[in-house]
């Protein structure tokens, strides 16, 4: 299971990386916005994407739409982990095809629950 973590703050990437490692996912890479993430996703054979929303350059929402529009990537499960908390935004993300939505600040238990739920649904 290869996971890409996209967030513009290195501390947040580190926290998510640590939590994922505790859940048994040790094969993770990091990117700091959509523009860096997209080429990595296209060449890297990732199984799962965890992304923030608000980032300089390409936002997580644009990344979500770009992934869903890409023939090769469109089935990649995506979990959004973000401080964006407007109802409209959550609805927009759901309509754009996000698989899970976690609002910051979050707990390890919530992250675990959402990731497990996504994998349950895929299998």
């Amino acid at each position, binding site marked *: 299971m290869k996971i890409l973590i996209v967030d513009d703050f290195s*501390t947040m990437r580190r926290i998510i990386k640590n939590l994922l490692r505790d859940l048994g996912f040790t094969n993770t890479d990091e990117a700091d916005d959509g523009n860096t993430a997209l080429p990595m996703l296209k060449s890297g054979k990732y199984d799962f994407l965890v992304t923030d929303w608000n980032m300089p350059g390409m936002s997580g929402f644009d990344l979500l739409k770009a992934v869903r529009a890409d023939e090769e990537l469109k089935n990649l499960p995506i979990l959004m982990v*973000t401080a*964006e*908390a407007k109802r409209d935004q959550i609805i927009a993300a759901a309509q754009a095809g996000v698989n899970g939505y976690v609002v910051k600040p*979050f707990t390890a238990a919530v992250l675990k629950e959402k990731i497990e739920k996504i994998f349950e649904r895929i299998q």
Partner: protein
Amino acid sequence: MTDSNKNNQGLEPEVTEKLKQQTSELAESVEEGDYARAMSIINELSDVRDQSLYREVGRLTRSLHEAIRNFQIDARNAEQKEALSKMSDASDRLNYVVQMTGQAANRTMDLVENAMPLAHAMRDEAVELREEWLRLRRREMAPAEFRELYGRIDRFFTTLTADSDTLYQSLSEILLAQDFQDLTGQVIQKVTALVKEVEENLLSLVVMASHVDQLTGTIHEIEEKEESAEKGVGPQIKADEREDVVSGQDDVDDLLSSLGF
């Protein structure tokens, strides 16, 4: 601004008095067919307007100077401007907050990442030793194995002492790493005070400028810019008081399940 001020649209009482007087004189001269006099009154009227305009522009300029002085921006040379500017100081201060919080977060995570394997190793060794210990109690252990266990328990106690010291040390360093809150809190409070001050100064400038607008009859069309949620707007402050914002993960889950997730 008082009511009479509002009615006079920021004009001085003597100006409005003069306006009234000259308008009636103007009406009279037109009525009487004295067009030369009417024209000269129109000229006088526009002089009155120009004079009040100059006065307001003068006032606006003084306020602008005052505001710039309040920001302590000395524009004589670029270097001084940089050094004296409270604004650039404020952004330096905020950068300092970002730096301090980043450092504290990384320091804490370093310590946690070092401590976690120790805790894991302790637990794993304790589990294995307990299994061996139970075998011993069930008398399933050969004397050679017992001697091995004997040494292993001894080593375990030694490592346990050292590792719990390290853990304790890490925990107390994590505690210390939270001292940024005090420093960054003070800095943020100072910057908040500056922002308030700047807002007040800007507000009085806006009021001054609106006087000039009233005198010249200028109307500004200000386009309302809507914040694009697609780009992301960051954390929501006062989320509990707002209808359009979720208050936590439970709210998100409810919303998503209402959408059939």
